[in-house]
């Protein structure tokens, strides 16, 4: 294996008496889709929040692109290329599609505290943003408010934004939440577009999608990383079946 893009080592997090994460070890290799699954309350969301920098672990460290990122804030991690995307209602609704992407280009460029030059004529923002929109097929809708876009268009906008962040890794937290049937097809489309750019850490409930798309899978149970392996390894792991997957995978 080559050097991992993201490395989680020994991460522990407690909320009062509740042990949400228990010495979790995890890594993300270049080019792969690594899915994290587990029952509700297994600590998936808590783990993602800690990687993103929204919560601080009690102990343990995160390495990203070869550097320790423990002291970086959430926004600094995002700027470093650790891109978290497809959160619930994650667009700036009043902004146009273009402004949403411009904000991402601006964030990645790390030059926010400029007060006088109008952004509309700031070609170092507008041009790349238009390029990303074009690639996402939203050129026509550049000046439409994000809140007025269709569901499909919003997903495309999310992709444009994620790509505009000059990502080195993606984190997707339940991108299918609320989509309903046919979700795995949509997810396949999204992942195909993103994986060309960077590896993906995916948290997802939909088992069919996970097993058909992921390269590797980690199973969290009660805050512990119960098992990590390829799809086949996990499918055939008796302990995982007993603990969690049960009939669902067997069928």
């Amino acid at each position, binding site marked *: 294996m080559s050097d991992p893009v993201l490395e989680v080592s020994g991460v522990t997090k407690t909320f009062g008496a509740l042990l949400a994460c228990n010495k979790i070890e995890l890594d993300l290799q270049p080019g792969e889709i690594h899915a994290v699954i587990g029952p509700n309350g297994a600590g998936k969301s808590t783990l993602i929040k800690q990687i993103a920098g929204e919560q601080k672990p009690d102990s343990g460290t995160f390495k990203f692109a070869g550097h320790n990122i423990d002291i970086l804030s959430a*926004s600094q991690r995002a700027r470093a290329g650790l891109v978290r995307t497809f959160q619930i209602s994650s667009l700036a609704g009043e902004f146009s599609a273009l402004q949403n992407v411009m904000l991402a280009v601006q964030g990645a460029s790390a*030059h926010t*505290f400029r007060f006088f030059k*109008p952004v509309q004529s700031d070609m170092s923002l507008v041009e790349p943003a238009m390029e990303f929109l074009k690639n996402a097929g939203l050129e026509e809708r550049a000046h439409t408010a994000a809140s007025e876009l269709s569901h499909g268009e919003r997903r495309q906008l999310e992709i444009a934004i994620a790509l505009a962040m000059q990502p080195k890794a993606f984190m997707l937290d339940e991108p299918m939440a609320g989509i309903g049937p046919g979700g795995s097809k949509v997810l396949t489309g999204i992942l195909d577009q993103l994986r060309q750019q960077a590896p993906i850490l995916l948290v997802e409930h939909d088992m069919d999608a996970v097993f058909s798309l992921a390269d590797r899978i980690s199973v969290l149970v009660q805050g512990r990383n119960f098992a990590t392996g390829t799809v086949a390894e996990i499918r055939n792991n008796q302990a995982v079946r007993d603990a969690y997957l049960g009939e669902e995978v067997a069928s």
Partner: protein
Amino acid sequence: MTLTRETAINAVLFVGLLIAALIAYLLDEPFIITMATKVAIFSIAGIGLNLALGYGGLVSFGHAAFFGFGGYVAGILANHALNNTLVFSWPIEMAGTNSMLMIWPVAIFLSALVALLIGVLSLRTSGVYFIMITLAFAQMIYYFAISWPAYGGEDGLPTYIRNSFPGLNTLNPIEFFLICFVWLGVSLMLCSAIVHSRFGLALQGTRQNEQRVTSVGIDPFRVKLVAFVISGGITGLAGTLYTDLNRFVSPSVFSWQTSGEIMVFVILGGVARLFGPLAGAALFITMEFTLGGMTEHWQLWLGLLLLFVVLYTPGGLIGVLTSGRGKDV
């Protein structure tokens, strides 16, 4: 800026204020000039607040703290200049001054500094909690100002004359109006530039969706803090001008009613509209003085008028005039 209906209305408002003052000058009605000056000053304060409240979604109920701070800087410096005493003698000797060119930078700097302190402590909260914690800080300063005897306590601090500006007689109403009017123009331009800049994009993004801004690599706390500091500085400047208008400053500038009034101007005119504060202040102050002259119970009528505006004209005055929906904050 394209020539939209809103731009046209803005121009009419801005030029209208100037023309009103000039006509009053020709008709020798200095009080109308004073009222126009008051409109200009409260518009500046409102522009400051609008930056935080309208564009940043930071509903501050404590902007009286900055308005009052600017006001007291002008009052204290002028008072020391009048009595020829030192403001403080350690670590360096600081004498009073009655030059506006000296007072303005000091007032803007100190108000912004106060905004920085209050902002660092308040911006951890949001929503109603933010409204109330900013109010709490303003109230602390208010009670301090009332009971601190050095600068007059609740009696306030007269400066007797206006501070001076090279080449102008500031006691002449029209000349002082022009100073305030120029500052109004500068504040509007500054606000417009900020709103349309990279920072403005981040600020408005933060108002709509803080998580999104974080996830594209921008720290929303810093964005909000910087906006709050600029906002405090602009409102502080308005405070110094208000001291000069009245030749007097008292703790009532720190009261929650002052915060409320500035907020009412902004909402009345239209939240997150560049010229909203000007429209709101102009309507409110005109009503206050015309109704006040007509009936003892003018506050009742003013209240009913405000109710009508808020219930039937969403988007504030500018919103009505451009017949557009207001922006929800």
